[in-house]
């Protein structure tokens, strides 16, 4: 594989995490413009862990995920009392606050005669873990996809579990879910925490992929893009946001010949797509149809029946 393809595929893999993170909240019916904050927090936390503290990569990624989840829960508790646009704008405000704080963050350590660490608006250079440990870009890409596949399988299990059903139920009708005895607030905060962890993992991988992060990369554009991926790809399944990322980055890279016109074409396509399919390509109806066809082929034992409140019967 040539380096260019590896680069594009690695990018798709990393961005998939933040798309999934926005998707979890979309499941519960909340729009977040601020998932880039947890992506940034994960990136800085993991980068600091390997470059400054000499941690191994796996520990750093887990650390990034934990910090991402923790901060998402901390922000989620007060903000998730808000709904719709109010929540969306609160997350936007939070994410921009985080971005500016990273512009002010200076934490550098002298390593081998060189200052390493976040240096305000100039960014955080030399996150050299993959060079120092002789990890090739192909190996790192495989690592990204291994983590993505593991995360995705857990995610698909979650979607089929009682918890996943509860998330969708809250997304459909919060009041009704509440009347069924579901603690809406607690589940939303949980969804925010899962989203924060996913974004944190993605951020940690991103920091080590690019070896250089700067606050500017984590602006509103990234947040709105990650939100858009779920809607373009579809809200019916976790493959939806991945499809969205694939379409955006993959297709845009493929039609590089049209360089100057690509956003014009892409923007128009997305707008038209959303008129025809307001809940994305892989929306709930299509996923349900595919599931039904699948079950016709599979023997009856493979089915999971769900009771009215989502328990298996």
């Amino acid at each position, binding site marked *: 594989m040539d380096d260019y393809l590896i680069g594009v595929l690695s990018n798709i893999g990393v961005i998939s995490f933040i798309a999934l993170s926005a998707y979890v909240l979309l499941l519960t019916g909340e729009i977040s413009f601020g998932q880039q904050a947890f992506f940034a927090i994960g990136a800085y936390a993991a980068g600091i862990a390997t470059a400054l503290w000499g941690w191994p990569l796996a520990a750093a990624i887990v650390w990034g995920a934990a910090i991402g989840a923790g901060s998402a829960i901390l922000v989620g508790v*007060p903000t998730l009392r*808000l709904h*719709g646009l109010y929540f969306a704008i609160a997350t936007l405000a939070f994410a921009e*606050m985080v971005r500016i704080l990273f512009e002010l963050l200076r934490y550098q350590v002298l390593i081998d005669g060189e200052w390493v660490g976040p240096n305000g608006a100039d960014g955080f250079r030399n996150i050299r873990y993959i060079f120092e440990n002789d990890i090739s870009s192909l190996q790192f890409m495989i690592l990204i996809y291994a983590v993505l596949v593991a995360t995705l399988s857990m995610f698909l299990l979650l979607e089929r579990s009682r918890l996943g059903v509860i998330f969708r139920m809250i997304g459909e009708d919060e009041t009704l879910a509440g009347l069924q005895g579901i603690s809406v607030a607690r589940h939303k905060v949980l969804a925010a925490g899962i989203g924060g962890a996913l974004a944190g993992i993605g951020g940690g991988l991103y920091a080590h992929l690019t070896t250089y992060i700067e606050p500017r990369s984590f602006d509103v554009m990234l947040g*709105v893009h990650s939100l858009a991926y779920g809607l373009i790809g579809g809200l019916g399944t976790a493959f939806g946001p991945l499809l969205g990322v694939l379409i955006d980055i993959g297709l845009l890279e493929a039609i590089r010949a049209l360089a100057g016109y690509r*956003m014009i074409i892409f923007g128009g396509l997305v707008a038209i797509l959303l008129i025809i399919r307001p809940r994305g390509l892989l929306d709930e109806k299509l996923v349900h149809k595919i599931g039904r066809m699948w079950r016709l082929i599979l023997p009856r034992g493979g089915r999971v029946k769900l009771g009215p409140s989502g328990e298996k019967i």
Partner: protein
Amino acid sequence: MIDLVQNTIDGVMIGSSYGLLALGFTLIFGVMRRLNLSYGPSIMIGGYVGTVLYVQYGAGPLAVAGTMILGAAIAGIYVERLCFAPMRMGAGIASMVSSFAIWMQLEQAAILVLPRHTYPFPPLTTGAPLEWGPFLLRLDHLIMLGCALGLTAAIQFALYRTRFGLALRAIIGNPVAAHLVGINVSVAVMLAFAAASAIGGVAGFLVLSVDQQVTPMFGMWATLKGLIAMMIGGLGSIPGAILGGLLLGVVEAHCQWYFGPQIRDLAAYIVLFVFLLVHPGGLLGRAPGSDIAAPRTP
């Protein structure tokens, strides 16, 4: 003390442009219950039409202002027809994401037509600032404040004293009932959208003529400032939009003076965040109840 007052004056002046941006924003939100992320970029398109007229044909500020307002209104209608009209009922998130896609499109179109990063924009006035005791007042700032107050009054009048305003308020109350009593909802909403973008165009022209340049980043700037001012003032409230803009301007001016540009931006978001947590209705808005993600009750 002089600094304090001068900063407050400057803040009020700059804040009036934020207020104007919020005014257009809140009008769209009030009528549609939808967030139009392409609001700023539509204004930016108007600005680009203006700069072409200025650079190529040497047009004066008034002609530039006219074309810019017209350009912004047309771009606004384009956004409304593509992102909002096809999904008037429900699908609030889809409209918002769709307006984001069009934002990307408009920005790219602007860069394609005028590839340089900045383009000059005509100043409105070139005279020395007026002196008032120890304080300085810029004439273009005063015009900005006058426009903000005048347009707020005009919008308030149009909404509460004209038949068109009555129709819009009927649509805000209940679009289906409005349709049943013979209001052409589609056309009325489109006109409101165009009017809102035109107000944005006025705000954009005033800001750009103070800056004397236009860049593709202006779209994002206008969307963000309008959004912050609108939320601080209270979603859907017209006097609130202006008040929110003025408050934002004053806070920014002081923070800029004492702590520099980064803290200024930080402070704006902190004010917004705290308002949303403590008093989500903003200065003059009603407490939040309706949800843009939920379909409007038919």
